[in-house]
């Protein structure tokens, strides 16, 4: 059995909120902007404690991104907050020109990503954001797996000079990483060691991958679960070291198959170490209303689906 225990389920967005508040107290250059979702993004504590460094833009995401780019001119480190859909797809050209191409030190922080947003349905359940962001030259893309890691990642990206997309979510999920673990951008964490199959996941699906590893273990299959919280830049070294050992790969993500972590890993393996691979992801469809658990099951993203993908890849 994997050695991780849930210390009490929490939402990753609250990890962001705590990290941002900590930054407010420790780094005077950090400022925050929000487009009318302060409570949903858990930015209210920062806004209350540092009102002069908090900018409420109203429901105007394009303006928020541009304004954040402008705030960097003068040395501020702006953190923007809204839902993942409105953080990326809605403002893609603003991010492309005013942030990425202009090389501005903006931290785009996005909650309610993926299917696990739940009942609001497909208008809000963006499954393309990782792909959109990782295509932009110079953009760092991060999606932590739990509350503790989201808090650590929020603090880490303030110390990184350059644009970052930080993705997190709405539901309470198991909180199992160490509260003291520093977040290292670009470093994947091997959570369990195994010789038979490598399971690469990020975000909410890391816990599902650990559950799948337990189920596989019961069948005598030893899975190596790696948390790819940084999707770009990809930790190629850790990936190849594991795959050279296992010779089989499953990727798991709450995202479209096109443009996601599986794409990135498939590209690396095709060039450096061609390996049989299965991809657990949404396959060219939109989501719908439902509970997070129902949606993960219907769209084939839960632990049982990761386990089945491992079984399939072992037959190849």
């Amino acid at each position, binding site marked *: 059995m994997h050695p991780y225990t849930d210390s009490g389920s929490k939402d990753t967005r609250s990890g962001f909120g705590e990290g941002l508040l900590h930054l407010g107290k420790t780094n005077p250059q950090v400022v925050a902007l929000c487009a009318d979702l302060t409570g949903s993004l858990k930015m209210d504590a920062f806004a209350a404690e540092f009102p002069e460094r908090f900018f409420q*833009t*109203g429901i105007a995401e394009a*303006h928020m991104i*541009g304004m954040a*780019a402008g705030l960097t*001119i003068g*040395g501020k480190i702006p953190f923007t907050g809204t839902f993942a859909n409105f953080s990326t797809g809605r403002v893609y050209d603003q991010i492309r*020109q005013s942030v990425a*191409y202009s090389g501005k030190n903006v931290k785009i922080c996005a909650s309610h990503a993926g299917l696990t947003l739940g009942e609001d349905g497909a208008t809000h359940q963006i499954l393309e954001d990782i792909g959109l962001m990782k295509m932009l030259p110079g953009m760092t893309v991060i999606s932590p797996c739990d509350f503790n890691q989201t808090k650590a990642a929020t603090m880490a990206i303030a110390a990184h000079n350059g644009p970052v997309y930080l993705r997190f979510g709405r539901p309470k999920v198991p909180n199992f990483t160490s509260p003291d673990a520093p977040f290292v951008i670009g470093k994947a964490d091997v959570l369990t060691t195994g010789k038979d199959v490598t399971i690469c996941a990020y975000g909410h699906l890391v816990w599902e991958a650990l559950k799948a590893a337990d189920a596989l273990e019961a069948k005598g299959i030893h899975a190596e679960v790696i948390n790819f919280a940084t999707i770009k830049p990809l930790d190629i070294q850790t990936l190849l070291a594991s795959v050279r050992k296992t010779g089989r790969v499953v990727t798991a993500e709450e995202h479209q198959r096109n443009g996601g972590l599986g794409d990135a890993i498939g590209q690396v393996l095709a060039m450096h170490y061609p390996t049989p691979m299965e991809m657990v992801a949404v396959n060219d469809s939109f989501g719908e209303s439902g509970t997070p658990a129902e949606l993960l099951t219907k769209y084939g993203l839960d632990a049982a689906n990761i386990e089945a993908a491992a079984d399939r890849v072992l037959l190849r």
Partner: protein
Amino acid sequence: MAAHIQDIPSQVRRDILRMVHAVQSGHPGGSMGCTEFFVALYFDVLRHNPRPFNMDGPGEDLFFLSNGHISPVFYSVLARSGYFSIDELKTFRKLNSRLQGHPTTHEGLPGVRIASGSLGQGLSVAVGAAQAKKLVGDDRLIFTLHGDGELQEGQIWEAALYAGAKKVDNLISTIDANGQQIDGSTDDVMPMGDIGAKFAAFGWDVMHIENGNDLEAIRHGLRTAISKTGHGKPICIVMRTAMGYGVDFMAGTHKWHGIAPSDDQLTAALAQLPETLGDYPA
């Protein structure tokens, strides 16, 4: 440096036409219409330090060009006010140049603080820079320029609403009201109505410069605008210009928005524009 600021616009227009002609691409019309504005700003009004260029610009007035396609006038005035060598103007739009078709920070060209080209984004950036100045108690100002056609972009009005509502009163935004855009006159493509009234309705202090190709009128207008800052409202200047101003066969039509002059047209145009400061070497 010119002995007289009045000598500069003619030279800037020569730069614009020669740059665009050399690569047979670029946007001369709007550039020529805004020449007096840029000269007044960079050679009279802005409190700025061209060298060494500091991206953050503490203690400096900052300018953001939102309608980035008029890069030729921007580059000419940046070079001639000391941000980089005027020789570099000959690299405009060529491979491996810092003078990209539209302005960008990406190649490290001094004087440019944000990429622009995709329209409608510069006002938001300027609002952010203005708020950054306020946060540190820097009393210098933020200036922007926008095309009138550019105001058709929705983000402009997001930013305008914010700046008015949040009292961003260290910001002076000028609208180049030349009444032209690529597909024709703004009245034909998408009538803009009363631009000043729109900004006033969004909480801005609005002024007008009726002859935006009169250098003294712009110098006076910008000084008046500066006197209005710090009173709880951003300042909007609606500046009436003629696209292509300075060359008789180019003035007042959208035809020269994005068209380069031929060899004969360049010769005819340069004959109308005295070489006051010395051309950059071809």
